Protein backbone atom coordinates (compact mmCIF):
# COMPACT_ATOMS: atom_id res chain seq x y z
CA UNK A 1 0.00 0.00 0.00
CA UNK A 2 1.09 3.58 -0.34
CA UNK A 3 0.14 7.15 0.38
CA UNK A 4 -0.58 9.17 -2.73
CA UNK A 5 -1.53 12.44 -1.20
CA UNK A 6 -1.42 14.14 2.17
CA UNK A 7 -3.22 17.28 3.27
CA UNK A 8 -2.65 18.98 6.60
CA UNK A 9 -4.54 21.79 8.25
CA UNK A 10 -3.29 23.39 11.49
CA UNK A 11 -1.15 20.37 12.22
CA UNK A 12 1.81 21.34 14.46
CA UNK A 13 3.82 23.90 12.49
CA UNK A 14 1.95 23.19 9.22
CA UNK A 15 -0.82 25.67 8.72
CA UNK A 16 -1.76 24.26 5.36
CA UNK A 17 -0.10 21.58 3.29
CA UNK A 18 -1.07 19.59 0.24
CA UNK A 19 1.53 17.22 -1.21
CA UNK A 20 1.71 14.14 -3.37
CA UNK A 21 4.29 11.43 -2.90
CA UNK A 22 6.39 9.12 -4.95
CA UNK A 23 5.31 5.51 -4.52
CA UNK A 24 8.89 4.46 -3.71
CA UNK A 25 11.40 6.62 -1.88
CA UNK A 26 10.61 10.07 -0.50
CA UNK A 27 13.44 11.97 1.14
CA UNK A 28 12.54 14.83 3.45
CA UNK A 29 15.41 17.24 3.95
CA UNK A 30 15.55 20.19 6.31
CA UNK A 31 17.41 21.88 9.11
CA UNK A 32 16.53 21.12 12.72
CA UNK A 33 13.11 22.16 14.01
CA UNK A 34 11.65 22.81 10.54
CA UNK A 35 8.95 20.13 10.55
CA UNK A 36 10.43 16.85 9.31
CA UNK A 37 9.32 14.80 12.29
CA UNK A 38 5.97 16.61 12.30
CA UNK A 39 5.36 15.44 8.75
CA UNK A 40 6.25 11.84 9.59
CA UNK A 41 4.16 12.04 12.70
CA UNK A 42 1.16 13.23 10.67
CA UNK A 43 1.39 10.08 8.55
CA UNK A 44 1.63 7.99 11.69
CA UNK A 45 -1.42 9.70 13.18
CA UNK A 46 -3.31 9.09 9.94
CA UNK A 47 -2.63 5.37 10.44
CA UNK A 48 -3.19 5.01 14.18
CA UNK A 49 -5.18 8.13 15.09
CA UNK A 50 -2.57 8.75 17.75
CA UNK A 51 0.97 10.06 17.82
CA UNK A 52 4.13 8.04 18.44
CA UNK A 53 5.62 10.97 20.33
CA UNK A 54 2.95 12.12 22.73
CA UNK A 55 -0.25 10.86 24.33
CA UNK A 56 -1.55 14.45 24.53
CA UNK A 57 -3.49 15.15 21.38
CA UNK A 58 -3.71 18.83 22.11
CA UNK A 59 -0.01 19.18 21.29
CA UNK A 60 -0.72 18.17 17.70
CA UNK A 61 -3.05 21.10 17.09
CA UNK A 62 -1.26 24.24 15.99
CA UNK A 63 -0.92 26.75 18.78
CA UNK A 64 -3.90 29.12 19.02
CA UNK A 65 -5.98 26.92 16.67
CA UNK A 66 -9.19 25.04 17.40
CA UNK A 67 -8.57 21.86 15.49
CA UNK A 68 -6.11 19.99 13.32
CA UNK A 69 -7.00 17.92 10.30
CA UNK A 70 -5.03 15.26 8.47
CA UNK A 71 -6.37 13.90 5.23
CA UNK A 72 -4.73 11.26 3.14
CA UNK A 73 -5.43 9.31 0.02
CA UNK A 74 -3.97 5.85 0.05
CA UNK A 75 -3.94 3.08 -2.51
CA UNK A 76 -4.31 -0.49 -1.45
CA UNK A 77 -5.09 -3.50 -3.62
CA UNK A 78 -5.59 -1.15 -6.58
CA UNK A 79 -8.21 0.79 -4.70
CA UNK A 80 -8.06 4.40 -3.62
CA UNK A 81 -9.16 5.00 -0.05
CA UNK A 82 -9.61 8.41 1.57
CA UNK A 83 -8.69 8.66 5.25
CA UNK A 84 -9.20 11.54 7.62
CA UNK A 85 -8.31 12.26 11.23
CA UNK A 86 -9.61 15.37 12.90
CA UNK A 87 -8.38 16.47 16.33
CA UNK A 88 -9.96 19.12 18.51
CA UNK A 89 -10.70 19.91 22.12
CA UNK A 90 -13.96 17.99 21.68
CA UNK A 91 -12.06 14.81 20.89
CA UNK A 92 -11.09 13.10 17.68
CA UNK A 93 -12.91 11.83 14.67
CA UNK A 94 -11.59 9.27 12.23
CA UNK A 95 -13.15 8.80 8.83
CA UNK A 96 -12.59 5.86 6.53
CA UNK A 97 -14.03 6.25 3.02
CA UNK A 98 -15.53 9.50 4.30
CA UNK A 99 -17.59 7.65 6.90
CA UNK A 100 -16.92 8.36 10.55
CA UNK A 101 -15.77 5.29 12.48
CA UNK A 102 -16.93 5.29 16.06
CA UNK A 103 -14.80 2.35 17.01
CA UNK A 104 -11.07 2.82 16.64
CA UNK A 105 -10.69 -0.85 15.83
CA UNK A 106 -12.72 -0.26 12.66
CA UNK A 107 -10.35 2.46 11.54
CA UNK A 108 -6.90 1.21 12.46
CA UNK A 109 -5.50 -1.24 9.98
CA UNK A 110 -6.69 0.64 6.90
CA UNK A 111 -3.21 2.13 6.59
CA UNK A 112 -0.30 0.05 7.87
CA UNK A 113 2.76 1.96 8.94
CA UNK A 114 6.11 0.91 10.32
CA UNK A 115 7.95 3.78 11.94
CA UNK A 116 11.60 3.68 12.82
CA UNK A 117 12.96 6.64 14.75
CA UNK A 118 15.98 7.03 17.04
CA UNK A 119 13.84 6.25 20.09
CA UNK A 120 13.06 2.82 18.63
CA UNK A 121 16.73 1.92 18.92
CA UNK A 122 15.98 1.63 22.62
CA UNK A 123 13.54 -1.23 22.06
CA UNK A 124 16.07 -3.54 23.66
CA UNK A 125 17.49 -1.46 26.47
CA UNK A 126 14.48 0.72 27.26
CA UNK A 127 11.95 0.03 30.02
CA UNK A 128 9.43 -2.84 29.62
CA UNK A 129 6.59 -0.54 28.52
CA UNK A 130 8.58 0.26 25.37
CA UNK A 131 8.37 -3.41 24.42
CA UNK A 132 4.75 -3.86 25.49
CA UNK A 133 3.79 -0.83 23.46
CA UNK A 134 5.65 -2.27 20.49
CA UNK A 135 3.74 -5.55 20.74
CA UNK A 136 0.40 -3.79 21.21
CA UNK A 137 0.81 -1.42 18.27
CA UNK A 138 2.12 -4.01 15.85
CA UNK A 139 -0.36 -6.66 16.85
CA UNK A 140 -3.09 -4.04 16.76
CA UNK A 141 -2.45 -3.07 13.19
CA UNK A 142 -2.53 -6.59 11.83
CA UNK A 143 -5.44 -7.58 14.06
CA UNK A 144 -7.58 -4.52 14.85
CA UNK A 145 -9.92 -6.41 17.24
CA UNK A 146 -6.88 -6.74 19.50
CA UNK A 147 -7.07 -3.00 20.13
CA UNK A 148 -10.68 -3.33 21.18
CA UNK A 149 -9.84 -6.08 23.67
CA UNK A 150 -6.82 -4.17 24.95
CA UNK A 151 -9.08 -1.19 25.62
CA UNK A 152 -11.55 -3.41 27.48
CA UNK A 153 -8.74 -4.90 29.52
CA UNK A 154 -7.45 -1.47 30.49
CA UNK A 155 -10.91 -0.36 31.60
CA UNK A 156 -11.37 -3.41 33.84
CA UNK A 157 -7.85 -2.96 35.18
CA UNK A 158 -8.57 0.63 36.13
CA UNK A 159 -11.79 -0.37 37.91
CA UNK A 160 -10.03 -3.20 39.69
CA UNK A 161 -7.16 -0.99 40.85
CA UNK A 162 -9.61 1.52 42.27
CA UNK A 163 -11.42 -1.24 44.10
CA UNK A 164 -8.15 -2.62 45.48
CA UNK A 165 -7.28 0.86 46.77
CA UNK A 166 -10.67 1.03 48.51
CA UNK A 167 -10.08 -2.38 50.08
CA UNK A 168 -6.57 -1.36 51.11
CA UNK A 169 -7.90 1.73 52.88
CA UNK A 170 -10.72 -0.38 54.37
CA UNK A 171 -13.33 1.90 52.80
CA UNK A 172 -15.05 -1.34 51.84
CA UNK A 173 -14.83 -4.84 53.32
CA UNK A 174 -16.89 -7.05 51.05
CA UNK A 175 -14.81 -8.94 48.48
CA UNK A 176 -17.64 -10.01 46.17
CA UNK A 177 -16.96 -7.17 43.75
CA UNK A 178 -13.26 -8.01 43.76
CA UNK A 179 -14.11 -11.54 42.71
CA UNK A 180 -16.28 -10.17 39.90
CA UNK A 181 -13.60 -7.83 38.61
CA UNK A 182 -10.96 -10.54 38.89
CA UNK A 183 -13.08 -12.84 36.71
CA UNK A 184 -13.65 -10.04 34.25
CA UNK A 185 -9.95 -9.17 34.16
CA UNK A 186 -8.96 -12.80 33.63
CA UNK A 187 -11.28 -13.13 30.64
CA UNK A 188 -9.65 -10.19 28.87
CA UNK A 189 -6.12 -10.96 30.08
CA UNK A 190 -6.28 -14.51 28.72
CA UNK A 191 -7.48 -13.33 25.38
CA UNK A 192 -4.65 -10.78 25.12
CA UNK A 193 -2.03 -13.27 26.23
CA UNK A 194 -3.20 -15.92 23.79
CA UNK A 195 -2.96 -13.44 20.93
CA UNK A 196 0.43 -12.17 22.05
CA UNK A 197 1.75 -15.72 22.02
CA UNK A 198 0.65 -16.16 18.43
CA UNK A 199 2.19 -12.82 17.49
CA UNK A 200 5.48 -13.71 19.19
CA UNK A 201 5.66 -16.81 17.08
CA UNK A 202 5.32 -14.77 13.91
CA UNK A 203 7.81 -12.20 15.12
CA UNK A 204 10.43 -14.87 15.77
CA UNK A 205 9.81 -16.46 12.43
CA UNK A 206 10.51 -13.21 10.58
CA UNK A 207 13.16 -11.66 12.82
CA UNK A 208 15.59 -14.53 13.27
CA UNK A 209 16.65 -14.82 9.61
CA UNK A 210 16.97 -11.04 9.20
CA UNK A 211 19.14 -10.84 12.27
CA UNK A 212 21.22 -13.77 11.16
CA UNK A 213 21.90 -12.05 7.89
CA UNK A 214 22.73 -8.58 9.33
CA UNK A 215 25.17 -10.16 11.74
CA UNK A 216 26.79 -12.10 8.87
CA UNK A 217 25.65 -15.40 10.29
CA UNK A 218 27.68 -15.03 13.46
CA UNK A 219 24.83 -14.35 15.86
CA UNK A 220 21.77 -16.29 16.79
CA UNK A 221 18.82 -14.28 18.10
CA UNK A 222 16.24 -15.64 20.46
CA UNK A 223 13.14 -13.71 21.52
CA UNK A 224 11.51 -14.70 24.78
CA UNK A 225 8.23 -13.53 26.17
CA UNK A 226 8.07 -13.18 29.94
CA UNK A 227 4.51 -13.37 31.22
CA UNK A 228 3.60 -12.82 34.87
CA UNK A 229 2.22 -16.34 35.12
CA UNK A 230 4.00 -19.58 34.39
CA UNK A 231 2.34 -20.87 31.28
CA UNK A 232 3.55 -22.43 28.07
CA UNK A 233 3.15 -20.43 24.87
CA UNK A 234 1.23 -23.29 23.33
CA UNK A 235 -1.44 -23.14 26.05
CA UNK A 236 -4.99 -22.41 24.93
CA UNK A 237 -7.25 -19.74 26.39
CA UNK A 238 -8.84 -22.07 28.97
CA UNK A 239 -5.45 -23.16 30.26
CA UNK A 240 -4.30 -19.53 30.50
CA UNK A 241 -7.49 -18.63 32.35
CA UNK A 242 -7.00 -21.34 34.91
CA UNK A 243 -3.38 -20.28 35.48
CA UNK A 244 -4.47 -16.69 36.08
CA UNK A 245 -7.25 -17.85 38.40
CA UNK A 246 -4.81 -19.81 40.57
CA UNK A 247 -2.28 -16.99 40.67
CA UNK A 248 -4.82 -14.27 41.47
CA UNK A 249 -6.11 -16.46 44.26
CA UNK A 250 -2.61 -16.77 45.74
CA UNK A 251 -1.98 -13.06 45.43
CA UNK A 252 -5.24 -11.70 46.79
CA UNK A 253 -3.91 -10.66 50.18
CA UNK A 254 -0.82 -9.07 48.69
CA UNK A 255 -2.82 -7.19 46.07
CA UNK A 256 -5.06 -5.68 48.74
CA UNK A 257 -2.00 -4.73 50.81
CA UNK A 258 -0.44 -2.98 47.84
CA UNK A 259 -3.73 -1.64 46.52
CA UNK A 260 -2.97 -2.56 42.92
CA UNK A 261 -3.12 -5.40 40.39
CA UNK A 262 0.18 -7.26 40.44
CA UNK A 263 -0.03 -9.58 37.43
CA UNK A 264 -1.40 -9.50 33.91
CA UNK A 265 -0.38 -8.55 30.36
CA UNK A 266 0.22 -4.97 31.49
CA UNK A 267 3.21 -6.23 33.48
CA UNK A 268 4.67 -8.69 30.98
CA UNK A 269 7.96 -8.19 29.17
CA UNK A 270 9.93 -9.48 26.24
CA UNK A 271 13.66 -10.25 26.31
CA UNK A 272 16.20 -10.69 23.55
CA UNK A 273 19.07 -13.14 23.70
CA UNK A 274 22.01 -13.23 21.31
CA UNK A 275 24.07 -16.39 21.39
CA UNK A 276 22.31 -17.23 24.65
CA UNK A 277 23.24 -13.99 26.38
CA UNK A 278 20.66 -11.39 27.37
CA UNK A 279 21.32 -8.45 25.04
CA UNK A 280 19.76 -5.97 27.41
CA UNK A 281 22.33 -6.76 30.08
CA UNK A 282 25.34 -8.00 28.15
CA UNK A 283 24.94 -6.76 24.60
CA UNK A 284 27.09 -4.03 23.11
CA UNK A 285 25.34 -0.94 21.82
CA UNK A 286 25.91 -2.22 18.29
CA UNK A 287 24.30 -5.55 19.13
CA UNK A 288 21.32 -3.82 20.69
CA UNK A 289 20.89 -1.73 17.56
CA UNK A 290 21.15 -4.74 15.31
CA UNK A 291 18.36 -6.41 17.25
CA UNK A 292 16.15 -3.30 17.09
CA UNK A 293 16.78 -2.98 13.36
CA UNK A 294 16.10 -6.67 12.73
CA UNK A 295 12.78 -6.46 14.53
CA UNK A 296 11.75 -3.41 12.52
CA UNK A 297 12.76 -4.99 9.23
CA UNK A 298 10.96 -8.17 10.18
CA UNK A 299 7.81 -6.18 10.83
CA UNK A 300 7.71 -5.13 7.20
CA UNK A 301 7.57 -8.73 6.01
CA UNK A 302 5.35 -9.82 8.88
CA UNK A 303 2.73 -7.25 7.93
CA UNK A 304 3.05 -8.21 4.28
CA UNK A 305 2.44 -11.85 5.11
CA UNK A 306 -0.50 -11.16 7.42
CA UNK A 307 -2.20 -8.29 5.60
CA UNK A 308 -1.19 -9.09 2.03
CA UNK A 309 0.34 -5.66 1.37
CA UNK A 310 3.58 -4.02 2.38
CA UNK A 311 3.24 -1.27 5.00
CA UNK A 312 4.48 2.27 4.50
CA UNK A 313 7.88 2.74 6.12
CA UNK A 314 8.81 5.91 8.00
CA UNK A 315 12.50 6.37 8.79
CA UNK A 316 12.80 9.49 10.88
CA UNK A 317 16.37 10.64 11.38
CA UNK A 318 17.45 7.07 11.79
CA UNK A 319 19.54 6.35 8.70
CA UNK A 320 22.32 8.60 9.91
CA UNK A 321 22.30 6.68 13.18
CA UNK A 322 23.19 3.45 11.40
CA UNK A 323 26.59 2.52 10.02
CA UNK A 324 26.99 1.99 6.27
CA UNK A 325 26.56 -1.75 6.46
CA UNK A 326 23.31 -1.63 8.44
CA UNK A 327 22.12 1.26 6.26
CA UNK A 328 22.50 -0.70 3.08
CA UNK A 329 20.93 -3.77 4.61
CA UNK A 330 17.88 -1.71 5.41
CA UNK A 331 17.70 -0.02 2.03
CA UNK A 332 18.27 -3.30 0.18
CA UNK A 333 15.38 -4.87 2.04
CA UNK A 334 12.88 -2.22 1.05
CA UNK A 335 14.18 -1.59 -2.43
CA UNK A 336 11.48 -1.51 -5.05
CA UNK A 337 8.65 -2.77 -2.88
CA UNK A 338 8.00 -0.55 0.12
CA UNK A 339 6.97 3.08 -0.05
CA UNK A 340 9.46 4.78 2.24
CA UNK A 341 9.85 8.19 3.82
CA UNK A 342 13.31 9.14 4.99
CA UNK A 343 14.04 12.32 6.89
CA UNK A 344 17.49 13.77 7.27
CA UNK A 345 19.27 17.06 7.81
CA UNK A 346 21.92 16.10 5.33
CA UNK A 347 21.47 13.90 2.32
CA UNK A 348 25.21 13.39 1.97
CA UNK A 349 25.08 10.93 4.83
CA UNK A 350 23.08 8.47 2.71
CA UNK A 351 24.93 6.43 0.12
CA UNK A 352 22.72 4.08 -1.74
CA UNK A 353 21.57 3.48 -5.25
CA UNK A 354 17.88 3.79 -4.31
CA UNK A 355 18.54 7.47 -3.80
CA UNK A 356 18.50 7.83 -7.55
CA UNK A 357 14.80 7.08 -7.80
CA UNK A 358 13.96 9.21 -4.77
CA UNK A 359 11.86 12.31 -4.76
CA UNK A 360 13.23 15.12 -2.60
CA UNK A 361 11.16 17.37 -0.38
CA UNK A 362 12.71 20.40 1.28
CA UNK A 363 11.10 21.38 4.56
CA UNK A 364 11.47 24.88 5.94
CA UNK A 365 9.44 26.30 8.78
CA UNK A 366 6.26 24.38 8.05
CA UNK A 367 6.35 24.60 4.28
CA UNK A 368 7.47 22.00 1.77
CA UNK A 369 9.18 22.55 -1.58
CA UNK A 370 9.43 19.75 -4.08
Amino acid sequence: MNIEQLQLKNYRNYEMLDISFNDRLNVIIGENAQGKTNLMEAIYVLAFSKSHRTPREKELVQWEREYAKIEGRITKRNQTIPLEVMLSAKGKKAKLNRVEQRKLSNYIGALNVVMFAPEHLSLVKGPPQTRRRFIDMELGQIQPTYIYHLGQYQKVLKQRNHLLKQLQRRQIQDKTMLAVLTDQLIQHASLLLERRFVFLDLLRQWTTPVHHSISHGTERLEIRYAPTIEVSESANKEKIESMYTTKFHELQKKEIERGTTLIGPHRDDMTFYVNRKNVQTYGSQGQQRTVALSVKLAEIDLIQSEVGEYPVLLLDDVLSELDDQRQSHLLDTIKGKVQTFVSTTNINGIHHETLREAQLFRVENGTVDT
Partner: protein
Amino acid sequence: MYYPEPISKLIDSFTKLPGIGPKTAVRLAFFVLNMKDDDVLDFAKSLVNAKRELTHCSTCGHITDQDPCAICQDTSRDGSIICVVQDPKDVIAMEKMKEFNGKYHVLHGAISPMDGIGPEDINVPDLISRLKDEEVEELVLATNPNIEGEATAMYISRLVKPSGIKTSRIAHGLPVGGDLEYADEVTLSKALEGRRDL
Protein backbone atom coordinates in the same frame (compact mmCIF):
# COMPACT_ATOMS: atom_id res chain seq x y z
CA MET B 1 -22.77 39.60 22.56
CA TYR B 2 -25.42 41.49 24.56
CA TYR B 3 -28.92 40.03 25.02
CA PRO B 4 -31.70 41.43 27.21
CA GLU B 5 -31.71 39.52 30.46
CA PRO B 6 -34.87 37.41 29.91
CA ILE B 7 -33.38 36.03 26.69
CA SER B 8 -29.93 35.38 28.09
CA LYS B 9 -31.53 33.49 30.97
CA LEU B 10 -33.49 31.37 28.52
CA ILE B 11 -30.30 30.72 26.53
CA ASP B 12 -28.56 29.65 29.73
CA SER B 13 -31.37 27.21 30.48
CA PHE B 14 -31.18 25.64 27.04
CA THR B 15 -27.42 25.12 27.30
CA LYS B 16 -28.05 22.97 30.37
CA LEU B 17 -29.69 20.34 28.15
CA PRO B 18 -27.52 17.54 26.76
CA GLY B 19 -26.30 17.95 23.20
CA ILE B 20 -27.13 21.66 23.04
CA GLY B 21 -24.23 24.03 22.49
CA PRO B 22 -24.28 27.83 22.75
CA LYS B 23 -25.26 28.39 19.10
CA THR B 24 -28.21 26.00 19.20
CA ALA B 25 -29.31 27.52 22.50
CA VAL B 26 -29.50 30.97 20.92
CA ARG B 27 -31.47 29.59 17.97
CA LEU B 28 -33.94 27.81 20.27
CA ALA B 29 -34.37 30.86 22.50
CA PHE B 30 -35.28 33.08 19.56
CA PHE B 31 -37.57 30.38 18.24
CA VAL B 32 -39.46 30.42 21.54
CA LEU B 33 -39.94 34.20 21.21
CA ASN B 34 -41.84 33.61 17.97
CA MET B 35 -44.03 30.81 19.33
CA LYS B 36 -47.72 31.31 20.17
CA ASP B 37 -48.31 32.41 23.78
CA ASP B 38 -50.44 29.33 24.52
CA ASP B 39 -47.83 26.95 23.20
CA VAL B 40 -45.13 28.57 25.30
CA LEU B 41 -47.33 28.34 28.38
CA ASP B 42 -48.09 24.65 27.73
CA PHE B 43 -44.41 23.99 27.24
CA ALA B 44 -43.47 25.66 30.51
CA LYS B 45 -46.22 23.80 32.37
CA SER B 46 -45.14 20.44 30.97
CA LEU B 47 -41.61 21.06 32.10
CA VAL B 48 -42.65 21.91 35.63
CA ASN B 49 -45.25 19.14 35.89
CA ALA B 50 -42.98 16.45 34.55
CA LYS B 51 -40.51 17.28 37.25
CA ARG B 52 -43.03 17.85 40.04
CA GLU B 53 -45.43 14.97 39.42
CA LEU B 54 -42.98 12.23 38.50
CA THR B 55 -41.29 10.25 41.21
CA HIS B 56 -39.53 6.93 41.36
CA CYS B 57 -41.64 3.86 42.06
CA SER B 58 -40.81 2.70 45.59
CA THR B 59 -40.90 -0.91 44.43
CA CYS B 60 -39.03 -1.03 41.13
CA GLY B 61 -37.44 2.40 40.82
CA HIS B 62 -39.05 3.22 37.46
CA ILE B 63 -40.27 6.79 36.88
CA THR B 64 -43.98 7.13 37.58
CA ASP B 65 -46.76 9.56 38.49
CA GLN B 66 -48.32 7.06 40.90
CA ASP B 67 -46.68 4.83 43.47
CA PRO B 68 -46.38 1.88 42.95
CA CYS B 69 -46.09 2.35 39.20
CA ALA B 70 -48.57 0.97 36.65
CA ILE B 71 -46.31 -1.96 35.81
CA CYS B 72 -45.88 -3.01 39.45
CA GLN B 73 -49.64 -2.73 39.97
CA ASP B 74 -50.53 -4.74 36.88
CA THR B 75 -51.63 -8.17 38.21
CA SER B 76 -51.72 -9.68 34.72
CA ARG B 77 -47.94 -9.46 34.59
CA ASP B 78 -45.75 -12.33 35.67
CA GLY B 79 -44.19 -11.39 38.98
CA SER B 80 -41.93 -14.43 39.07
CA ILE B 81 -39.55 -12.90 36.53
CA ILE B 82 -37.82 -9.56 36.97
CA CYS B 83 -35.83 -7.78 34.32
CA VAL B 84 -33.04 -5.69 35.85
CA VAL B 85 -32.04 -2.59 33.85
CA GLN B 86 -29.83 0.42 34.44
CA ASP B 87 -32.14 3.20 33.36
CA PRO B 88 -35.87 4.05 33.12
CA LYS B 89 -35.31 4.51 29.36
CA ASP B 90 -34.42 0.82 29.16
CA VAL B 91 -37.83 -0.08 30.62
CA ILE B 92 -39.51 2.04 27.97
CA ALA B 93 -37.43 0.39 25.23
CA MET B 94 -38.38 -3.07 26.51
CA GLU B 95 -42.06 -2.14 26.84
CA LYS B 96 -42.20 -0.85 23.29
CA MET B 97 -41.35 -4.24 21.89
CA LYS B 98 -44.16 -5.92 23.89
CA GLU B 99 -42.35 -9.23 24.32
CA PHE B 100 -41.64 -9.18 28.00
CA ASN B 101 -44.49 -9.74 30.43
CA GLY B 102 -42.60 -9.84 33.72
CA LYS B 103 -41.73 -7.00 36.04
CA TYR B 104 -38.75 -4.67 36.19
CA HIS B 105 -36.14 -3.34 38.52
CA VAL B 106 -34.33 -0.11 37.63
CA LEU B 107 -30.86 0.29 39.14
CA HIS B 108 -30.22 3.89 38.11
CA GLY B 109 -26.61 3.24 37.24
CA ALA B 110 -23.95 0.57 37.32
CA ILE B 111 -21.26 -0.34 39.82
CA SER B 112 -18.08 1.59 39.07
CA PRO B 113 -15.30 1.71 41.70
CA MET B 114 -13.42 4.43 39.84
CA ASP B 115 -16.45 6.71 40.12
CA GLY B 116 -16.95 5.69 43.74
CA ILE B 117 -20.21 3.91 42.89
CA GLY B 118 -20.71 0.74 44.90
CA PRO B 119 -23.70 -1.64 45.04
CA GLU B 120 -25.37 0.44 47.80
CA ASP B 121 -25.24 3.53 45.61
CA ILE B 122 -27.47 1.97 42.99
CA ASN B 123 -30.77 0.25 43.61
CA VAL B 124 -29.25 -3.14 44.56
CA PRO B 125 -30.28 -3.33 48.26
CA ASP B 126 -33.92 -2.73 47.21
CA LEU B 127 -33.65 -5.53 44.69
CA ILE B 128 -32.40 -7.92 47.34
CA SER B 129 -35.24 -7.11 49.73
CA ARG B 130 -37.70 -7.54 46.86
CA LEU B 131 -36.33 -11.03 46.28
CA LYS B 132 -37.02 -11.82 49.91
CA ASP B 133 -40.58 -10.41 49.91
CA GLU B 134 -41.81 -11.46 46.49
CA GLU B 135 -42.02 -14.86 44.84
CA VAL B 136 -39.31 -14.36 42.25
CA GLU B 137 -37.93 -17.30 40.25
CA GLU B 138 -35.81 -15.63 37.62
CA LEU B 139 -33.80 -12.46 37.13
CA VAL B 140 -33.07 -11.29 33.60
CA LEU B 141 -30.02 -9.09 33.85
CA ALA B 142 -30.29 -6.52 31.08
CA THR B 143 -27.64 -4.08 32.20
CA ASN B 144 -25.65 -2.36 29.46
CA PRO B 145 -23.23 -4.52 27.48
CA ASN B 146 -20.14 -2.56 28.53
CA ILE B 147 -17.55 -3.24 31.24
CA GLU B 148 -19.54 -1.69 34.10
CA GLY B 149 -22.90 -3.15 33.06
CA GLU B 150 -21.35 -6.57 32.65
CA ALA B 151 -19.67 -6.36 36.07
CA THR B 152 -22.93 -5.24 37.68
CA ALA B 153 -24.75 -8.24 36.19
CA MET B 154 -22.02 -10.58 37.42
CA TYR B 155 -22.18 -9.03 40.87
CA ILE B 156 -25.95 -9.43 41.20
CA SER B 157 -25.72 -12.95 39.89
CA ARG B 158 -23.15 -13.87 42.55
CA LEU B 159 -25.25 -12.24 45.22
CA VAL B 160 -28.45 -14.17 44.47
CA LYS B 161 -26.81 -17.48 43.66
CA PRO B 162 -27.24 -18.97 47.20
CA SER B 163 -31.00 -18.23 47.06
CA GLY B 164 -31.43 -20.55 44.09
CA ILE B 165 -33.05 -17.86 41.93
CA LYS B 166 -32.16 -18.36 38.28
CA THR B 167 -30.24 -15.54 36.63
CA SER B 168 -29.74 -14.96 32.94
CA ARG B 169 -28.06 -12.26 30.97
CA ILE B 170 -29.18 -10.70 27.74
CA ALA B 171 -26.29 -9.55 25.66
CA HIS B 172 -26.60 -11.23 22.28
CA GLY B 173 -27.44 -8.98 19.41
CA LEU B 174 -26.92 -5.83 21.39
CA PRO B 175 -24.27 -3.50 20.02
CA VAL B 176 -21.17 -4.17 22.11
CA GLY B 177 -20.26 -1.23 24.27
CA GLY B 178 -23.44 0.52 23.22
CA ASP B 179 -26.35 1.50 25.37
CA LEU B 180 -29.54 -0.45 25.61
CA GLU B 181 -31.60 2.60 24.78
CA TYR B 182 -30.11 2.78 21.31
CA ALA B 183 -30.87 -0.82 20.45
CA ASP B 184 -33.73 -1.09 18.01
CA GLU B 185 -36.67 -3.25 18.83
CA VAL B 186 -35.68 -6.15 16.60
CA THR B 187 -32.25 -6.56 18.19
CA LEU B 188 -33.81 -6.24 21.63
CA SER B 189 -36.29 -9.05 21.10
CA LYS B 190 -33.54 -11.21 19.60
CA ALA B 191 -31.48 -10.41 22.66
CA LEU B 192 -34.28 -11.51 24.92
CA GLU B 193 -34.64 -14.82 23.11
CA GLY B 194 -30.93 -15.45 23.35
CA ARG B 195 -30.50 -14.77 27.03
CA ARG B 196 -27.94 -17.01 28.61
CA ASP B 197 -27.54 -18.40 32.10
CA LEU B 198 -25.00 -16.70 34.30
